[in-house]
């Protein structure tokens, strides 16, 4: 089987929509994806759906069938949970099923409703991606965990809060034209550095916001796309997933993310490309330091060098390797279970020229999407390439 195609994608506006139910958020994104793809709902073989905290936010488990129904699809539906990498894991399963002939059409997606429970409860819910016994009970929050990694990074490799601020400034600037983004506001390095600290050394502008939103994409086999005359020039050519010890205390390095190294190596080998071939990347910048760790694990930068990428302008839309043209999780927002598919959609739209920041890479043919769960104990990497 040849590589699956992205036949269509849809995302809701990301932001604060506390009154919108998860099922309505996903219905909007899923129907948009189906409409964009031109695929008939009765042709859908399966729905793979990412969601992290539905039990806590909406008292709703068993979301797979609920979401299939919400998009008018009568097909087996399964929820994937890998913390913030839930949707990435859903995409990976779809890609494998499409490749091995188990399915011709799979809808992938995810949704998260978060702001309805308030910041304190959402902070609590996000923390459960960490080890409850050994981390959460020692006061670790989601920002706190990345703060521990950031301080370790500074200690081992250097870099400063100012370097992290440049990442926030870049991603905010990228989001200015993204109408799906939660935050469309230009900020300065000074704004970021002077913002209140949430978990030292990280401040408010180092952190992604709490977000309601959904994303979906219709993936088909290349054969199905050809037979049905679909306009689907972008293929998912590589998939990889890596894991690591759940608790930071059990890892040999606090400033490296080997789960992402493994996922990237697998995805590149699968696609037959290398880091040098990558034209554009969407990476999991739940915190600014996470973008640094991601671009190093993806092999786009040497260890200890990624911290300077944004400061030097190399990863902004004018740079050689634009990272997070969507605005990233930082500005676009991070509806946890939807993020992996929102990244996939962004890369596909940048490569097919329909994204508002596609002009940053007019000749781009290879993109990667890096989706990390928790403190990167789960990571998926997908390689997307223009095929026609």
């Amino acid at each position, binding site marked *: 089987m040849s590589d699956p195609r992205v036949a269509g994608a849809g995302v809701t506006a990301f932001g604060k929509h506390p009154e919108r139910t998860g099922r309505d958020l996903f219905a909007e994104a899923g129907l948009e994806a189906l409409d964009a793809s031109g695929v008939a709902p009765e042709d859908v073989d399966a729905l793979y759906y990412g969601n992290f905290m539905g039990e806590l936010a909406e008292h709703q488990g068993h979301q797979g069938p609920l979401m299939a129904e919400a998009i008018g699809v009568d097909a087996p539906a399964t929820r994937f949970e890998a913390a913030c990498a839930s949707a990435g894991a859903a995409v990976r399963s779809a890609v494998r099923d499409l490749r091995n002939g188990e399915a011709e059409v799979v809808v992938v997606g995810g949704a998260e409703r978060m702001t309805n429970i308030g*910041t*304190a*409860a959402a*902070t*609590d819910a996000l*923390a459960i991606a960490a080890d409850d*016994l*050994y*981390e*959460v*009970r*020692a*006061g*670790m*929050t989601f*920002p*706190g965990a990345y*703060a*521990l*990694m950031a*301080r*370790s990074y500074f*200690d081992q490799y250097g870099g400063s809060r100012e370097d992290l601020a440049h990442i926030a400034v870049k991603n905010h600037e990228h989001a200015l034209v993204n109408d799906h983004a939660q935050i469309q506001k230009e900020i300065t390095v000074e704004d970021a550095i002077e913002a*209140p*600290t*949430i*978990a*030292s*050394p*990280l401040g408010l502008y180092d952190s992604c916001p709490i977000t309601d939103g959904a994303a979906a994409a219709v993936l088909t086999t290349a054969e199905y796309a050809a037979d049905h005359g679909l306009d689907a020039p972008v293929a998912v050519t590589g998939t990889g997933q890596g894991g690591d*010890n759940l*608790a*930071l*205390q*059990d890892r040999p390095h*606090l400033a490296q993310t080997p789960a992402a190294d493994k996922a990237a190596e697998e995805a590149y080998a699968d696609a037959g490309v290398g880091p040098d071939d990558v034209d554009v990347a969407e990476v999991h910048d739940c915190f600014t330091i996470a973008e640094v760790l991601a671009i190093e694990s993806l092999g786009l930068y040497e260890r200890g060098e990624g911290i300077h990428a944004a400061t030097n302008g190399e990863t902004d839309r004018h740079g050689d390797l634009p990272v997070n043209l969507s605005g990233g999780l930082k500005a676009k927002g991070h509806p946890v279970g939807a993020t992996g598919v929102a990244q996939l959609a962004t890369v596909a739209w940048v490569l097919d020229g329909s994204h508002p920041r596609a002009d940053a890479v007019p000749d781009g043919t290879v993109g990667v999407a890096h989706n990390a769960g928790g403190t990167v104990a789960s990571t998926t990497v997908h390689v997307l390439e223009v095929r026609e």
Partner: protein
Amino acid sequence: MTEPAPDGEYDEWLDAIEADEGYYVECANGHGWLPPRRVCPECGSRELTAEPLPDSGEIVTHSTITVATPQFEDDAPYVTAIADFGPVSVTGLVRGVDPEEVEMGAVVGVEVGERETTGDRAVVFRPR
């Protein structure tokens, strides 16, 4: 109301720390972990034995957390750190030192304290 059930070997481990008999579990190849463990995730060894936790560790990273979960609301701001005890690293709350004064490499001992917000037990580091 029913008393919450203890969390098995985790609560036993806290009991041991409290009794000044802290331990970790070690595999045949010297990889150290905190309980419960039935297999070494590093090498697959199932020959795990309890070994005394070294008396002091070194802070390898730390953060002063100001935006807390509801369970730590009254504790904030507080310092969470990871301390390297040699064969294992442990995560805990740093007390007995001003948050501003916590330093990388600082030598700490481990004890069991209480969360200010809930009164629940928590791993606490104090400067040695």
